[in-house]
């Protein structure tokens, strides 16, 4: 164990490769190692749920604790149960409800569908004291559809889709659906005309330790890098609640959160109503009196150690290896991915910092296919809701590693921030703004080339 820890400080890629070679996997191709040494060779439905090979077995108990907390169905307080503390207002009762098997969630298919893995971010014009979104005075910063007994849920959001067809050069028609958000049964008054609403599906939660280990300098360098064809990219600067200072945002769909710990604490608080040392107050607004009077499950409901265990779990969830990396069609698709400028934002490879908080994640050459920067994605994807520096058209480039396993892990998953895209091709055809060049390049592709491009994406 000591030897492993020592090697961990030096960077464990060589050891991992040696291990893979010695263990008989002599055909391991470094092109497949999306997460460097933190890659797992698993393409099953549990591909997103494996512990990183670099995790020291001494930490297994913490990983399992984090996994249990992530899978925990939370309980209304008071209860004779450690998991008491759900709500008073909440969206779902467990983390995995929105991140099924640690993968993406999906959007409702129409107005009758409930938001099982989706939430609605809310804000009003202006900013909070730190420059972030200004929460709605009655409903806060996200709609909590559900309340514990005695506390009315905030209301119901539902989607009505507008559809249009995009025609590709070979005549293929792609039907795109755009969600329009509607509300009913609002329990705490009307939302008001100036409310800004942004629907979001649960994102993947593996590989986050590696993204956390990318240095600020690397992100800033990518922002400075000149890019062709109208592509830019800029960092979001957000309030780091732990450090109590401004920092580069890298988590969240608008790169609106600086640290993984804060991202997780926010989700516990906003989605489940679970308080933690970072978010110690229940999620009740001033007008939600029943919410304020509801019993709490603890002060806070999630201890520091439990929050850390959940963070550690997500830091140590391995990235699945690429498949078919030497397949001719996949290689051709990769070439087209570069030619179509997708690589300008969906960047790879990147190297993690040499002094990552978890030494095992240091110095890893990884293939996340993200630059963690904000990009204007055009009006089609705009949510009209600003978040720190991110305006209503900007989104953080989402990582693509593991995306080829999305539907194997969760057949109900949708692509893009709101799950509107049912296929990767639909997702591409929604690109606008800085992504226009790539979209048009794909539109013009021959059937064969487009198939190859999609095969490459499926190999990630």
């Amino acid at each position, binding site marked *: 164990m000591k030897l492993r820890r020592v090697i961990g400080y030096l960077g464990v890629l060589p050891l991992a490769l040696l291990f893979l070679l010695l263990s008989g996997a002599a055909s391991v191709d470094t092109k497949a190692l999306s997460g460097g040494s933190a890659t797992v060779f698993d*393409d*099953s*439905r*549990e591909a997103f749920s494996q512990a990183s090979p670099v995790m020291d077995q001494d930490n297994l108990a913490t990983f*399992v604790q984090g996994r249990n907390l992530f*899978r925990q*169905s*939370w*309980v*209304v307080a008071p*209860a*004779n*149960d450690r998991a008491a503390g*759900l709500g008073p207002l909440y969206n779902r*009762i*467990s983390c*995995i*409800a929105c991140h*099924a*098997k640690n993968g993406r969630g999906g959007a409702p298919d129409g107005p*009758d*569908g*409930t938001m*099982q893995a989706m939430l609605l971010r809310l804000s009003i*014009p*202006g*900013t909070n004291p730190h*420059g972030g979104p200004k929460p709605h005075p009655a409903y806060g910063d996200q709609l909590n559809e*559900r309340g514990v*007994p005695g506390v009315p849920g905030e209301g*119901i959001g539902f989607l*009505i889709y507008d559809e249009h067809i995009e025609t590709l050069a070979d005549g293929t028609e792609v039907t795109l659906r755009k969600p*329009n*958000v*509607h*509300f*009913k*049964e*609002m329990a705490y008054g*009307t*939302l008001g*005309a*100036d409310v*800004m*609403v942004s*629907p979001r599906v649960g994102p993947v939660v593996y590989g986050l330790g590696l993204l956390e280990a990318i240095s600020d300098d690397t992100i800033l360098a990518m922002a400075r890098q000149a890019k062709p064809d109208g592509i830019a990219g800029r*960092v979001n*600067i957000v309030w780091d609640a732990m450090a109590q200072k*401004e920092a580069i945002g890298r988590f969240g769909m608008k790169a609106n959160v600086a640290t993984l710990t804060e991202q997780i604490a926010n989700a516990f608080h906003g989605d489940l109503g679970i308080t933690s040392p970072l978010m110690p107050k229940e999620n009740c607004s001033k007008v939600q009196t029943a919410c304020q009077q509801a019993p709490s499950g603890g002060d806070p409901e999630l201890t520091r150690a439990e929050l850390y265990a959940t963070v550690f779990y997500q830091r140590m969830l391995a990235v699945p290896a690429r498949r078919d990396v030497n397949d001719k069609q996949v290689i051709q698709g990769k070439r087209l991915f570069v030619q179509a400028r997708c690589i300008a934002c969906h960047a790879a490879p990147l190297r993690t910092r040499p002094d990552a908080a978890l030494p095992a994640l240091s110095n890893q050459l990884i293939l996340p296919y993200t630059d963690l920067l904000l990009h204007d994605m055009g*009006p089609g994807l*705009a*949510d*009209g*809701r*600003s978040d*720190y*520096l991110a*305006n*209503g*058209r900007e989104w953080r480039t989402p990582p693509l590693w593991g995306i080829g396993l999305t539907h194997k892990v969760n057949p109900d998953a949708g692509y893009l921030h709101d799950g509107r895209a049912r296929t990767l091709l639909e997702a591409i055809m929604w690109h606008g703004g800085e992504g226009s060049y790539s979209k048009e390049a794909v539109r013009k592709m021959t059937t064969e080339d487009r198939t190859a491009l999609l095969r490459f994406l499926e190999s990630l």
Partner: protein
Amino acid sequence: MLRTPLSIRKLFAAAIFGFASVIALAADKPVSKVVVMTSYPEEVVSRFEAAFEKAHPGTRVEILWRRSGDALSYLRKPNQGNVDVYWTPAQRNFQILAQEGAFRRPELDMTGLPAKVGGFPISDPAGFYLASEIAAYGLAINPQRLQDKKLAAPKQWTDLTGPEWKDEIVFPVPGKVGFAPILTDIILQGYGWDKGWALLQAIGSNAHLLGQGGANISDDVRNGKASVGVSIDFFIKSAIANGAPLQFVYPGITGYSPAHVGIMKGAANLTAARAFAAFVLSDEGQKILFHHDIRKLPVRPAVYANKPAGYYDPFEAAKAMPFVFDTERALARQGLNNTLYDVLISNEHARLRQANDKVIQAEHAANTAALKARAAQARSLLDTVPVSEAEANMLAPQFVFAFDETTDAHRNDAITAQWTTRIRQNRERAEQLAQEVLNASGKQAGAQ
């Protein structure tokens, strides 16, 4: 690093926020609901919730999640905590609640839903709560590790008693792992009280005892901590369906643990409650149980016509089952069994192992009829249960039900101390006899 000026952001946001058509649709049909209490994991809950809501647009499922041990007190609150439906694997709770008159008759069409699997009753004979799925017990196997260890795949519980299985088994402690008490009594009923406890001791002696996290047995076996994990089936079958390189064996002697659905007497949303219960039992609801992430056994035999390849059919298997498991008997003595398991196996596990090892050595070493008889005497002492089945059944009511905190946790201390003393004496004597056999046969106690 400069921020975008606020005014620009405001203007920008104002210009495009209209994309999300935020319209309060006052004319929309109001949403009805059904409040369901359950302890099912998210994989089960979310699939039924989504499928039910799709089948019944306008009716929402509101889940109140409670562990079985904590659900009773909630359901005993005024208005039954406003719960409409109780749907969960917790036989004991359903039994107690039915005795307290907590349920109303569901009044559902039960066509195609037998009350028994073979001779084994799964639903409330009085009809207040209905079986919604069943689970069986068996052995999770890591074929690679079996091959590495040159072990033959076990087919029966009795295949796990030999010394070659030492440290190759994970066994759940019944007082700590929710599904294990029924498993324990299946072995006791299937093999008889004395033989059953001897078998549990022999397997327990070989096993890593799992004190919590029954759902993690598949991890332990998959990761090579052991070759075999004794488990309820769905944890393992689901892991296999999701790609785990494991196998699952249903031993010839197994039993079933049914889950149930019941409509609360005070259900405020009665129509929706009936609709939910009916959906759970419907063809559509029962087929959800086949899902990779669930892998439970439907109680509607007709749906097995469309079962995934290799799926276990308990109605078919029941035809060859050599006994009919008696759930009532198991539930009545669950507390006693849990305590007895601890006294016999968990509390002094190292001591049990030591005695068992020595007796096995003596059995192998005995080379005359007299020595064989002495080794058999040692075995008999080791296998002796400090309480007969008749006594156990008599004593059972005074043993605390595992989750019941209203009774004095120490009230059985004296009797368990007596059992412990008897077991220690028997083990000591068994070891003496075994040592005599080893001495007489010229072999010394040592490594296995």
